[in-house]
């Protein structure tokens, strides 16, 4: 029977099945960070267990790490304790840790792919909901809780129930000024934040094939914002070109046999999906969110929804509450709305191509004197590449802050945060109330839109600057 790539990935990782119980699934790569792991390591200690497969496990420090000079001590004592705990736990259990002072440290979902650890055909988990990022390689990658982190550390397996398959077909071609981020923001605006619950997305179609690996990661990254625990893209030549020569990618004969296996992964002709949705990339415009969940998004020039015209009472209340929190008025456009901060970075848009895109807009221009702009590379490798290309000079000349790698203002755990009432245009993935700091108000957008808005000091359509 023809199968989707989602079903092939599942079938090839089944360790044990028994009627009435979830399937025991093998995990090929387990990524660990400081926030969701300490209680899992403590659990191992209390049970007297070891880490079963340290060679399939990698830790890095990203969520609570400051993005200031790493040679200085960490001021936040609680964060410092958590970061030290990660390194101590990894040392105790024999796990490689890219800690605070590692030259490979970075956001967990940026580090795995750039080291060539994330490969087609794998199952990848991490105690982080944006693990779907790794799906860009044709891997089944999803976020897990801390109890599950402990289970994977102890057994390299997880109990799982098979998800529904959901095809997201994106045809056409993106127009100038429209980015991968806009594809996924448009998808979530269409299906809602719960639209993919219980499903795994497979992104297909010409517009997805035309994306680079880094752009595919941006799209897969936000699958969870549409409710899907995982989202993936079948591997192709773009995938192979990205992987070839990476530190942990197979070499020589091992590469050839891996490629032969990976070529059998794509969805078979005639396979069917449980659900599907189609988008036309040619019709997409730069997107921006206006509300307090990532589904509240619209084209940057469109007027905000008017609650008075929404018939469903819970939906009306939800939009009314969101507009109130955001200090916005229904029916008015967001274009031209003043902002205080721009954040360029995160596991969604903190890769080198994102920094190049932002730098392309900022080159030779100045950001508004009213706006603080943070540029946070996703990893030490991204940072070094950016330096080699002269990007920090462009950012600094434009008036941006060039900072050290980490999750930074995406989750605002490390001191990088909005003040109450402040507005940001952010390239991150969540605009929940207080996500970027208590009382802060977030507009999610692409690096292009973020850079354009930084220059004008207001929400801007980047196409006016191209």
């Amino acid at each position, binding site marked *: 029977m023809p199968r989707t790539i989602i079903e092939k990935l599942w079938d090839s990782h089944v360790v044990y099945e028994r009627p009435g119980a979830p399937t025991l699934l093998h995990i090929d790569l387990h990524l660990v960070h400081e926030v969701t792991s300490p209680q899992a390591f403590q659990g191992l200690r209390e049970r007297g267990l070891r880490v079963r497969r340290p060679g399939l496990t990698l830790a890095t420090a990203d969520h609570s790490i400051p993005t200031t000079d790493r040679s200085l001590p960490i001021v936040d004592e609680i964060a410092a304790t958590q970061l030290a705990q990660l390194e101590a736990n990894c040392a105790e259990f024999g796990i490689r840790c890219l800690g605070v002072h590692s030259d490979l440290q970075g956001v967990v979902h940026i580090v795995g792919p750039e080291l060539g650890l994330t490969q087609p055909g794998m199952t990848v988990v991490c105690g982080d909901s944006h693990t779907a990022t790794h799906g860009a390689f044709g891997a089944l990658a999803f976020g897990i809780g801390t109890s599950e982190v402990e289970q994977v550390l102890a057994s390299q397996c997880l109990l799982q129930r098979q998800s529904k398959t959901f095809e997201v077909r994106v045809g056409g071609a993106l127009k100038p000024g429209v980015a991968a981020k806009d594809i996924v923001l448009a998808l979530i605006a269409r299906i809602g934040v719960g639209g993919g619950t219980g499903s795994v997305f497979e992104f297909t179609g010409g517009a997805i094939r035309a994306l680079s690996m880094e752009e595919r990661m941006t799209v897969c990254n936000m699958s969870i914002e549409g409710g899907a625990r995982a989202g993936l893209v079948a591997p192709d030549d773009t995938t192979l070109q990205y992987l070839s020569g990476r530190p942990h990618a197979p070499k020589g004969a091992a590469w050839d046999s891996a490629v032969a296996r990976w070529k059998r992964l794509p969805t078979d002709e005639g396979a069917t999906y449980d659900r599907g949705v189609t988008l036309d990339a040619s019709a997409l415009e730069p997107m921006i969110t206006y509300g307090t969940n990532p589904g509240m998004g619209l084209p940057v020039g469109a007027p905000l929804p008017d609650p008075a015209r929404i018939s469903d009472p*819970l939906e009306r209340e939800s939009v009314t509450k969101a507009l109130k929190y955001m200090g916005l008025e229904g029916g008015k456009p967001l274009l031209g709305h003043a902002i205080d901060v721009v954040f360029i970075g995160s596991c969604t848009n903190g890769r080198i191509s994102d920094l190049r895109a932002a730098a392309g807009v900022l080159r030779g221009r100045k950001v508004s004197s009213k706006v603080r702009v943070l540029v946070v590379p996703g990893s030490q490798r991204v940072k070094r590449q950016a330096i080699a290309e002269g990007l920090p000079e462009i950012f600094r000349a434009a008036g941006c802050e060039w900072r050290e790698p980490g999750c930074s203002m995406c989750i605002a755990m490390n001191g990088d945060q909005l003040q109450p009432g402040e507005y940001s245009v952010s390239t991150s993935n969540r605009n929940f109330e207080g996500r970027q700091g208590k009382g802060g108000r977030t507009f999610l957008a692409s690096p292009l839109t973020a850079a354009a808005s930084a220059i004008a000091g207001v929400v801007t359509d980047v196409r006016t600057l191209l």
Partner: protein
Amino acid sequence: MKPFTNFQSRVVPLPLNNIDTDQIIPARFLKTTSKRGLDAQLFCDWRYDAQGSPNPDFVLNQPVSRGAQVLLAGDNFGCGSSREHAPWALTQFGFRAVISTSFADIFRQNSLKNSLLPIAIPPDAHAGLLAAVVADPGVEVAIDLPNQTLTLPGGRKVAFPVDEFSKHCLVNGVDELGYILQQEPAIAAFEAAHPAAIDTLG
């Protein structure tokens, strides 16, 4: 894990759709390395004002919440991050069940591992329960996990789904990791047949 027993309780209404884990427990509290002491941080930014005083308009600060063990929330409860701190904070406050029309996948899994029962019921039953609770905050529901029924204030019984395995684990207080480790022969056989593609230590 403590066995999940049947119980009866008043209901705390929080009828908003898409309540995300950043509201259940804001990220700034995730710097802890412990599972404990999270009850004070539950719904912190809705529960307290800028000065840290309890917000009297928020339901957790109202008499109905005192001793209540059931939260009634809107659709897609627990969306957002994978933080298990969300069910930890809810159970430490005293909740043993959350009723909604649907739950986000990761939150649902995390809850089941922490003796917090996610009860998804149809929209009409949900609307009826909400109306009953709003009309009289003193009304109670009864939760029967072995029979998978929720008894509404008027006596109507509503069935809710739970998979057999999770039910068995909850009712008997079975820890999943113990079950997984019992499958050692199958795990070892899989590993022998599937050489590792990577070595992070190498």
